[in-house]
């Protein structure tokens, strides 16, 4: 299973975690401290962030519910390969004219999340919706993976 562990905001995996530990206090006391310059280069360092994911199953489908706020649906890449579902994309920063001061706890940059599916699904019938920052991917099970009733014949 190739999972990237989900990190809660309280336990960010960023290499400069100690600097960030007071960030919440800073943000809560908006404007009372000097601003740092904008924080744009963390792309390759922040390989630890990936969206959180729940997986459900019923008789007909697997359903993945993924927490992915602030994306445009065109920018979300969903792919299925060898039974592994991958959600990838890029979280973009707010447009910057370079003059602003900013401080952020939000992850910005590329992300990729994979999960190995326990059941075979029909790749041609996968569908997804994106609403309120939640991506829901419905993966219909392959015919042979659905539960079947087997009749016992009286002999």
């Amino acid at each position, binding site marked *: 299973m190739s999972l990237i562990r989900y990190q809660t905001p309280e336990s960010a995996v960023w290499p400069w975690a100690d600097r960030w530990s007071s960030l919440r206090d800073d943000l809560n006391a908006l404007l009372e401290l000097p601003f740092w310059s904008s924080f744009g280069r963390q792309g390759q360092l922040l390989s630890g962030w990936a969206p959180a994911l729940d*997986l459900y199953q019923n008789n007909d489908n697997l359903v993945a519910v993924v927490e992915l706020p602030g994306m445009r649906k065109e920018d979300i890449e969903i792919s299925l390969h060898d039974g592994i579902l991958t959600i990838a994309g890029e979280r973009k920063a707010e447009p910057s004219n370079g003059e602003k001061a900013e401080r952020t706890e939000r992850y910005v940059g590329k992300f990729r999340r994979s999960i190995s599916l326990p059941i075979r699904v029909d790749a041609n019938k996968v569908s997804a919706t994106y609403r309120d920052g939640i991506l829901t991917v419905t993966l219909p099970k392959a015919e042979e993976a659905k539960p079947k009733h087997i009749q016992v014949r009286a002999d």
Partner: protein
Amino acid sequence: MSTTIRDNRETEARSAEPEQFVVPTASVVEENDAYTLRVEMPGVTKESLEMSMENNELTIIGRRSLPTIDGTLIHYELRRENFRRMFELDPSIDAKKISAKMEQGILMLTLPKAEHVKPRKITVS
């Protein structure tokens, strides 16, 4: 390794306790005229947002609703708690003019600065 299932007992016990919250991540950008505060609350709609101000303290509560899926949960990571965060605003922010927009789980608040603190050019005549 990843088949954790939380049973229903937890939800029932929780209804007897005070509401639990998680702290959403946020970002703030400063411009000449205003601050823009973005708070990440996936699953929250503008109808389920509750915001209030008291003594320069802005409290934001976002109640989230995850899609109801017919099926068994076989892998669980999303937290079900609602979001709450409080921000202490500098008095230079004009609280009456705060505007808000909610889109794809991100709450964007524009907090205009009061006139007297905006940067002003002073020309020498």
